[in-house]
């Protein structure tokens, strides 16, 4: 059974079409990324999946049930964008409420609240009110509430926006460590982050579904992306294009090159590249099998 199934899903706010005839089917497993420019309809899609909004037309089901239905309670959780916890109540009392609503006893709900707040590094502030927390801490508290109980699907809308690099890494590591049991759908503008976390990428633009990209395709992709620290760019392109099996070398950014090759003609291209770097005393920053997500989506 599909985890998420949207069929000709549309949502409009007055005359503005936020989602236009979107049909997708997603299966549970590795984290799924949802990307797109501002106003592309990502948050609207999340809100429809969570049942916060009703579709204007089309249908959406999660695990075969309508969003917000009794059967999904506790199985789907989310970090909604712009939603804040009650500023007048401390974190743990709100988490106990969430836990008890999910069927836990008061004691178990307290333990669960402490567990999830510890996961996001907020064990020391459980007795504090949200208004006394920084933006980053509030965001982490909101992520923690999404992990209460045993959700099967967690929708995270911009989970690392506004977090410092160290805490963004904590969140990424958390998603990685939990993704064996939970399917995450993550909306973010940080493509590097999504590349590290997700296997499947869905691209939305102006409310329409763009391309769907699989990061795992990189393994069979006949591309290598190289970021160089020091090199003679013209010579770099000429020398690599001269290698057997290489079709083309394109400079993507100032120091990033995309090498397209024919896998049937060459099976040691990486070794040849390293030998070339060594001969010319060039230093590389990164080598990626395949293309970067940015390149796949926007080129």
């Amino acid at each position: 059974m599909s985890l998420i199934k949207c069929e000709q899903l549309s949502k409009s706010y007055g005359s503005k079409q936020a989602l236009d005839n979107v049909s997708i089917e997603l299966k549970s497993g590795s984290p799924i990324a949802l990307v797109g420019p501002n106003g592309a309809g990502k948050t609207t899609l999340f809100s429809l999946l969570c049942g916060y909004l009703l579709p204007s037309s089309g249908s959406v089901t999660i695990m075969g049930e309508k969003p917000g239905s009794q059967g999904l309670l506790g199985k789907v959780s989310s970090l909604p964008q712009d939603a804040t916890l009650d500023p007048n109540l401390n974190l743990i009392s709100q988490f106990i409420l969430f836990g008890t609503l999910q069927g836990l006893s008061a004691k178990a709900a307290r333990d669960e609240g402490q567990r999830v707040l510890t996961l996001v590094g907020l064990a020391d502030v459980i007795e504090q009110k949200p208004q006394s927390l920084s933006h980053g801490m509030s965001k982490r508290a909101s992520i923690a509430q999404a992990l209460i109980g045993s959700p099967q699907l967690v929708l995270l809308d911009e989970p690392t926006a506004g977090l410092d690099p160290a805490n963004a890494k904590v969140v990424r590591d958390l998603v990685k460590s939990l993704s064996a049991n939970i399917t995450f759908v993550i909306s973010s503008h940080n493509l590097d982050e999504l590349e590290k976390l997700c296997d499947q990428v869905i691209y939305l633009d102006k409310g329409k579904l763009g391309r769907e990209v699989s990061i795992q395709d990189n393994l069979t992709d006949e591309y290598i992306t190289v970021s160089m620290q020091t090199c003679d760019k013209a010579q770099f392109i000429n020398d690599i294009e001269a290698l057997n099996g290489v079709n083309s070398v394109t400079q993507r950014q100032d120091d990033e090159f995309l090498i397209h090759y024919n896998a049937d003609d060459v099976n040691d291209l990486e070794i040849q590249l390293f030998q070339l770097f060594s001969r010319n005393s060039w230093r590389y920053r990164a080598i990626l099998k395949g293309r970067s997500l940015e390149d796949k989506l926007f080129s």
Partner: protein
Amino acid sequence: MEPHTTPSMVKNTLILAKFELKKLLFNPRGLISLFAFALVWLLILLYPVRSASSFLLTEEFKLLISAAFGESSINELFKWEVAEMAIFWIAALYLFPLFSIFVSADQFSSDKHRGTFRFLTLRTGRDSIFFGRFTGHMLIQSLLLILTILATVILAISRDMSLLLPALTSGALVFINVFIILLPYTAMMAILSLYANTARQATIYAILFWAISAIIIAIINSQLPSLAELLQWVLPGAQLSMMINTQGLGSLAYAPIPLIQAAVLLFLGRNYMKRSSL
């Protein structure tokens, strides 16, 4: 972690209702509101209730009232065994609905505005949230009502200790009557606070609703008096003026009006909650 029990709609409704009461009692903001309410009622009890009840006991006052308003207009008022409870009844009939508008103005507005509901709707159904909040606000108002009735009982027995039993009996009946009166007010505020972004806005909508409805009914009354007579029962509080001259079990004769109003308003509110965007 697996849940110990499968959450049911009724269980979650009660959890949310208890949480509303807890927010009032274990939160500095809630306690300040409670203190302000207690202070207002202390003044009402110490001055109007205590002094008016002593008037009510005098024969001259009875004659004056009868002469001014007629023999049967408020004759039931003099039949109350506990004079303090009679004055409290009149004050409570009008003040508690007014308090209800303010106390229950934030059943949903703030949470909806800041998105806090989004944390709840994935854990419990919208019915539980709607009826849980409504029940919670009725619990809060019941607590306030019980406190003021108990204070009135204390005031009465401080005058005459033998009034304890009649004061408690009539106090219990006053509680039941006022509780029923408050149901449609709280249900109305549930709908308005779902629509409004803040508690203040919900209160303004309530004032506008009652004022505009009264004007419309007055206009209809000039053209179609029979229709206006029917429409006046739609408004919460329509029966209040008639309830002044009732007491005890007799007041319950008017209970069907607020009960039907509350049922209709809760039905409308529940459907609005189901369809609204969070």
